[in-house]
């Protein structure tokens, strides 16, 4: 086992999971207190600025999750070890969750500030397309009837999807810039040091929550694969561990 694998195993063990859960709850609580009580209201937006502390970290986790899908997809195609496929699948599910959360939280923030739930801003539009690409990724995972093929197909979508995102973003940005961009979209929210701290803790809290959710999802994924391997093992005459790492082909 490499050190990366050992670290992953430690995190996804029951004990590691409990520690992560405690850390996630503590940091989310700290983030809530900082963003709701300690940090000052914004100069222009007043208390509405507090919606930033959940929206922006959610967006960060969404992008982080899809970057993990991309890296794990490459690792899977290179090594064909099922653990990389499990990592990609877990991260894609959580990424879709956080992308949807980003859009919903953003809409709730946008309605009072911009006066609309939705605007065809490049970042918004790219995020919506991102959500659809990875919903497609999850749909592809349900297509094949054997795990090896599922892993390969999903990995290809995970790679192509991620590589496509910058081009999508560029095209939508140019597309939008031909129209008049709303001036208030361009203004950076006024950020004081305390707001920066609240946002920083928000990033940390959401990242820890992501790692915790990953740990749980990876353990469940491993249990699913083990159940499958245990059912298959006597029939194909291969040990459970081997089947879990490299499923029978065909």
């Amino acid at each position, binding site marked *: 086992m490499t050190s990366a694998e050992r670290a992953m195993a430690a995190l996804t063990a029951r004990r590691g999971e409990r520690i992560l859960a405690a850390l996630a709850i503590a940091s989310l609580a700290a983030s809530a207190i900082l963003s709701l009580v300690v940090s000052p209201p914004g100069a222009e937006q007043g208390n509405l600025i507090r919606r930033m502390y959940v929206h922006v970290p959610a967006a960060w986790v969404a992008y982080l999750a899809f970057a993990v899908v991309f890296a794990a997809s490459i690792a899977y*195609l290179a090594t064909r070890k099922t653990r990389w496929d499990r990592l990609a699948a877990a991260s894609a599910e959580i990424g879709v969750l956080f992308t949807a959360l980003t859009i919903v939280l953003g809409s709730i923030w946008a309605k009072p500030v911009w006066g609309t739930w939705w605007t065809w801003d490049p970042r918004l539009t790219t995020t919506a*397309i991102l959500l*659809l*690409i990875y*919903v*497609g990724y999850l*749909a*592809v995972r*349900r*297509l*094949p*009837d054997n795990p*090896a*093929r599922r892993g*390969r*197909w999903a*990995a*290809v*979508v995970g*790679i*192509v*999807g991620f*590589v*496509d995102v910058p*081009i*999508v973003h*560029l*095209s*939508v940005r*140019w*597309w939008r810039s*031909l129209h008049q961009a709303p001036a208030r979209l361009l203004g950076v929210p006024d950020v004081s040091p305390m707001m920066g701290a609240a946002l920083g803790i928000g990033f940390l809290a959401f990242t820890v929550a992501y790692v915790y959710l990953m740990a749980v999802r990876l353990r469940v994924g491993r249990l699913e694969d083990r159940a499958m391997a245990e059912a298959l093992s006597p029939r194909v005459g291969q040990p459970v561990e081997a089947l879990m790492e490299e499923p029978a*082909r*065909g």
Partner: protein
Amino acid sequence: MTLLGQTLAVAGKDLRVEVRGRYALGAVLPFAATLLIAFGLSLGPGRTLLQQTAPGLLWLAVLFASVLAFRQTYQSEAEDGAMEGLLLAPIDKASVFLGKAAAVALELLVMEALVVPAVMAMFDLSLGDAPLVLAGAFVLGTIGLAAVGSLFGVLAESPRAREAVFPLLVFPLATPVLVAGVKAIELASTGRGGQAGSWLGLLVAFDLVVLGVGTLVFGQLLED
């Protein structure tokens, strides 16, 4: 046989199937025409609105039609063990991807050439004075679309395939084709073809990325 030769062989085979079966001409083209009439009816007969929306509607019709074209090209491989034959052939798997993309791109381009005059008449779309920009937008956009479709068309032929998965994958991934293709044609048709350079550049970048990544990973989709 080089990769180019193999690609041409696969493309030639697919085009031969089309010439003999006339699926794209007989079903995909009428479908695109039906869509355009439906778009026109839904927008009403106002001249300005139709003129403004024509480039977008034209590309939407191409996008929808391409879904049918790709279903057909991979469905014909599913019959009579044709796919197994293709897999057993001593060729680079990437040539299947490139060849199918080339064949469908050509079919779609023929379809576009037939549909554009109809759109000119029905939507009062002017072709402007930049035929090269116009041709570039159609050719580059169609190549990109064909590359995405050729890559993921394989997935639609899985035993548990659901019809919706293919467009769900292709449409979001092909966003740059839709945006850049529409904008380039819009600029060309309003006499501003000179400003379309960056859009054509974007299409070139998209085509190269999808063709490049597709060539690298396509074999992974087929291997079993």
